[in-house]
């Protein structure tokens, strides 16, 4: 059993790979923005039009939405819902599971259709899964750690902010 504090890291080269995959996806699907959120509610990456909303809160709600729906799936005898769709009048969002680790969120409007987004998401999820599986395998080999001096400085900031 591990403690609750095992970390994983996300490197510059991972970001570049993900950015390339998502940029191609946005071009092909004409969706507006795609975000990657991890299952604990943390925003990992944003590609495309910069969202006007609070992305940190958005990420936390996305993970909760996905987790709640996972439980609903189990109740009706499904192992999971691999994707979710929320339809709005002008803006809609499509969420898809990636490697059981992260969630791909696509924001789109009437410049494209749900069918087109779904079609393109399928291959994109495959490519992203590869990247994330590699990243998590590597993660268990060497745990992410902060550089020396970080802890002391962070403690000083905690005293200042919460003092």
């Amino acid at each position: 059993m591990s403690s609750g504090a095992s970390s994983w890291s996300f490197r510059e080269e991972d970001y570049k790979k993900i950015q390339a995959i998502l940029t191609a996806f946005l071009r092909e699907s004409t969706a507006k923005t795609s975000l990657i959120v991890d299952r604990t509610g943390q925003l990992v990456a944003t590609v495309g039009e910069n969202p006007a909303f609070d992305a940190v809160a958005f990420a936390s709600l996305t993970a909760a939405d996905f987790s709640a729906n996972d439980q609903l799936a189990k109740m009706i005898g499904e192992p999971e819902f691999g994707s979710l769709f929320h339809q709005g009048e002008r803006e809609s969002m499509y969420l898809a599971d990636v490697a059981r680790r992260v969630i791909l969120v696509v924001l789109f409007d009437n410049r494209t259709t749900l069918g087109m987004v779904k079609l393109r998401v399928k291959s994109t999820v495959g490519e992203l899964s590869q990247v994330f599986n590699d990243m998590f395998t590597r993660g268990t080999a060497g745990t992410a750690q902060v550089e020396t001096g970080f802890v002391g400085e962070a403690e000083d900031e905690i005293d200042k902010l919460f003092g």
Partner: protein
Amino acid sequence: MSMINYASREINCKLVYYGPGLGGKTTNLEHVYTKVSPNARGKMISLATETERTLFFDFLPVDLGTIRGFKTRFHLYTVPGQVYYNASRKLILKGVDGVVFVADSQLERMEANIEAMQNLYDNMAQQGYDLTKTPFMVQYNKRDLPNAGSIAQLQESLNPGWPVEDPAKQKLTPDPYHEGEHLVFQKDGQWIERAPYFEAVAVTGEGVFDTLKAVSKLVIKALG
């Protein structure tokens, strides 16, 4: 599971406030929200019922600023305390880095406290986490109420401690927050470790930042 994002140069840590219903978890977050500078915190999200009971969670991101080039942020969550919301509680514990158990000091709430503490241990174990190895604090809230139990009584029931098997850790360790008390000590020939505790009156803010400061420091230490 804190995440270090080298691409956006961010570190995010998740702190969860746990405890029985109406114990003051949301009040803790509300106090932090009111007192921390608006530049250092994001929007507070509350998924609550019409009667203001937390239905799913409250969420408040707090920025510590940029440290050694990394934007460091704490994500503060509360869970719903009511017994029947256990499915929601389990989801919120996913990826937790630090836990604050907010206990209601009123003696008539003792049973609810014990039940919630047992539920915390169970849910952590189900997620594959060991609470005794996770940064963990107990906050005794509502100390101002006339029917509040004594700290000794509350500690005995809610924070009796766990056995220390590692010989390297079997040494008398003073409690840095309470003079004359110990976090690791011997009882009946057995070494015991207890979670640090704080007294609080969350409605007035008393003890809220002491608790948050202590747990966030433990989380940061675990990163180093």
